[in-house]
């Protein structure tokens, strides 16, 4: 959420027309020239899709160390039957619901980073989510890592493809413009009570002029910028064809619908490099088994369809999907056939250029920290790789501290 400092910051940046300048269909041609060096992978027109798993995904039942006898001991009712797991190797298997991810692994397009977290993990949903969003553990966090990254991209474009009730995430704050949140293209049209063409033009002029008027009031100026961005975006998105025909069928789920809209926006060639979507419901304190299986099936099915659709359109090597959650869950299941808040968990990266397979060991089930898995890889090492090796921008100044990029992309 924005705070006062950010209003001032955004209002100092002046009109969002300036910020939006050049963010249009011609963007690709221009960036090719503007790209820093051809040899830094992803410096050109790579696309990052971030999928947030809200609520704290149970990593231990997502990427399962089935060989470890402690697994069965800690999960008396929630343990997954070994035979049904999608084996990654002799010790590790994916949750049985993740058939799509198993295919992607076969296809060399799934990277599983194990044991990811950060020091002194918070077990508050909101604090921990903020830490992941800001890439920092400082007390006061006001800007997000993707918001900051947008300042570094030659042409800053991003979309948050959201559910109707979804917050504006901290990860996207601090950008040179307000990242538009879209729920559907149908809803994204300005309706005026106009009876004729000139009536409509006249009303629209009054609206737009009101958004452009200089304001010395930071909150008012924030509203105006949002309005101005909105009117600009409705104009831009009006051009997009409504009839997107996917190359592969998408499952009938919410996440699949959102990713389908992402695919449509990518195809429309608007120049956005960052897309943000989320899937909620991972806070499984009770009766976890079915809920968790359904969520992982939704994730796996939607991502797989999206990636195959993108690949069929020639974007296999241009798209990278990254998943994260604010924390994993307690190793020992609780008394309600669920799990309480934990810490370290795996992350997934999906794309034609990721290093397929497992990266890092599964965290030890023996050496726990307050009953939680200990991380060995800082999430900001993954962010560093995504920023430097995929988006082609330096991570310093975006991440709070120096982090060596994790080797998650093929060179």
């Amino acid at each position, binding site marked *: 959420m924005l705070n006062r400092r950010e209003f001032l910051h955004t209002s100092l940046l002046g009109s969002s027309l300036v910020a939006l300048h050049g963010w249009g269909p011609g963007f690709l041609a221009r960036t090719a020239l503007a790209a820093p060096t051809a040899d830094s992978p992803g410096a050109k027109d790579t696309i990052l899709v971030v999928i947030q798993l809200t609520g704290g995904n149970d990593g231990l039942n997502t990427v399962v160390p089935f060989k470890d006898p402690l697994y069965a001991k800690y999960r008396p009712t929630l343990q997954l039957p070994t035979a049904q797991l999608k084996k990654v190797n002799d010790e590790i298997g994916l949750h049985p619901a993740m058939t799509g991810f198993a295919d992607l692994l076969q296809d060399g397009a799934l990277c599983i980073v194990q044991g990811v977290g950060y020091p002194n993990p918070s077990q508050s949903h*909101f604090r921990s989510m903020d830490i992941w969003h800001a890439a920092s553990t400082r007390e006061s966090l006001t800007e997000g890592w993707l918001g900051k990254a947008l300042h570094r991209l030659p042409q800053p474009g991003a979309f948050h493809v959201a559910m109707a009730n979804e*917050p504006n995430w901290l990860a996207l704050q601090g950008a040179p413009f307000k990242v538009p949140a879209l729920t559907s293209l149908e809803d994204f049209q300005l309706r005026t009570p106009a009876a004729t063409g000139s009536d409509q033009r006249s009303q629209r002029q009054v609206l737009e002029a009101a958004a452009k008027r200089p304001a010395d009031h930071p909150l008012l100026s924030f*509203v105006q910028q949002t309005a101005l*961005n*909105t009117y600009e975006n409705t104009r831009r998105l009006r051009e997009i064809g409504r009839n997107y025909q996917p190359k592969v069928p998408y499952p009938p789920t919410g996440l699949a619908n959102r990713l389908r809209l992402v695919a449509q926006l990518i195809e429309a060639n608007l120049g956005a490099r960052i897309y943000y979507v989320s899937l909620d419901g991972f806070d499984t304190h009770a009766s976890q088994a079915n809920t968790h299986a359904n969520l992982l099936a939704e994730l796996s099915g939607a991502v797989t369809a999206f990636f195959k659709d993108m690949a069929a359109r020639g974007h296999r090597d241009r798209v990278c999907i990254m998943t994260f959650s604010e924390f994993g869950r307690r190793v020992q299941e*609780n008394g309600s056939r669920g799990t309480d808040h934990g810490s370290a968990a795996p992350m997934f990266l999906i794309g034609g250029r990721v290093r397929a397979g497992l990266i890092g060991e599964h965290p030890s089930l023996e050496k726990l920290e307050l009953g939680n898995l200990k991380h060995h890889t800082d999430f900001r090492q993954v962010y560093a790789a995504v920023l430097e090796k995929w988006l082609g921008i330096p991570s310093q100044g975006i991440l709070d501290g120096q982090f060596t990029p994790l080797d998650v992309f093929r060179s």
Partner: protein
Amino acid sequence: MPTQQRIDRQWAWQPYLPDRDRPWNLQRVGHLYRRAAFAASWAELQQALHDGPKKTVDRLLTPGPDYESFHRSMEEVAALIAKGDNSIHLRAWWLARMCRTPFPLLEKMTLFWHNHFATSNAKVNHVGYMLQQNQTLRRFALGSFAEMLQAISKDPAMMIWLDTHLNKKGRPNENYARELMELFSLGIGNYTEQDIREAARAFTGWEIRDGKFHFNPAEHDDGEKTVFGRTGRWRGEDIVRMCLEHPACSRFLARKLFRYFVSETLDPEPDLLEPLAQRLRHSQYQVGEAVRMILTSNIFYSEHAYRARVKSPVEFAIGILRALEGQPNAVALANALENLGQRLFYPPSVKGWDGGPAWLNSTTLLARNNLAQALVSGEDPQFGSRCDPVLVLRKYGRQSEEQGLAFFLDLFLQGDLAPDARQRLAGYLRESEQFRWPAYWSDQDRREHRLRAVCYLVLTQPEFQLA
């Protein structure tokens, strides 16, 4: 505009007395009604202007003579809704209540508590329980927070939402204990992870039986627990009491009330909030007293508070309806509010809606404009003409178009709009006189269309998004 300068704490909480520099005018009346109610009708604005601040705040804080019968009739409808188990009716019921109530501050506070004890029917999946929680929140809304915190801990919807009913001896579930401390009473940084684990044991054996809280001693862990450094065989009620006794509790609540009523842009120093926290402590958490202290204070009527909040979707929509004295289709309204980002009884998480600038993004701002269009154009298939600006102009005898525009500006923005923006609105009325309109329109059709359109244009001014 909020300033960075240090605010004198003594001045801030002294009662506001109108004087030449800070007169009791339309702007201050409108400000009070946006915060303590859901905006005001023209008649209410005039009445308050006449009565002065003290009498107006008294009236806002007290159920009037009409309230009892209104409340009873709404509860009769509620009983039917509880049987029907359709959540859209529940949402519509509450919105209709906000729209019509003679005691809007009570609804405003109920909404505050809905966001504070944010419980979603997405998990509870029981309209009767959600309604029951809403009634509990209303019962204590301006009363004792201490009693409310005990009551809400045993509220069936809350117990399902945060898994209290599954918390068993030897197999504790931490969900409720954590949010009780983090979000309901203390705020992060005022307890340890160990406090949460121990407190969770105190809530074991709490169950729902026959739709009510039930204590099951067989499932209760009655061993010693150490919470906030105090050791005892604590039960859940003890933990709630210890949270209320914790020095962080009154400060946490004071900060939240300040944000709700005074400013979302000012991050107040602890020192500034201390008198308000003190009032809460000394009154055993009487919320009404704290709210009265805020609504009568200097800081509330100052530039630190004026337009320093973003209207929530509910405030935006109900504000238009109450100002225009409209009778909405509440089901349509409940559906529309979803696109504005506020689905009542379905907050996005236990933290509630973030509020403030987070309400606005491209999609939700567009949805606000489009809702304003649907409400005042008289042509929307869902809303029809049950909220007609032209009728209101007629009621208050505004004849000319200039008078009409001036009336809308006073009603919605209390005349506080920059001259150039005002001129553009007048410009639309002038220009549109020359447009070619459909041939079958009468003079009156044309005139009324343009008045409704200019009302819409007032409602889409950025200033109208601010509370």
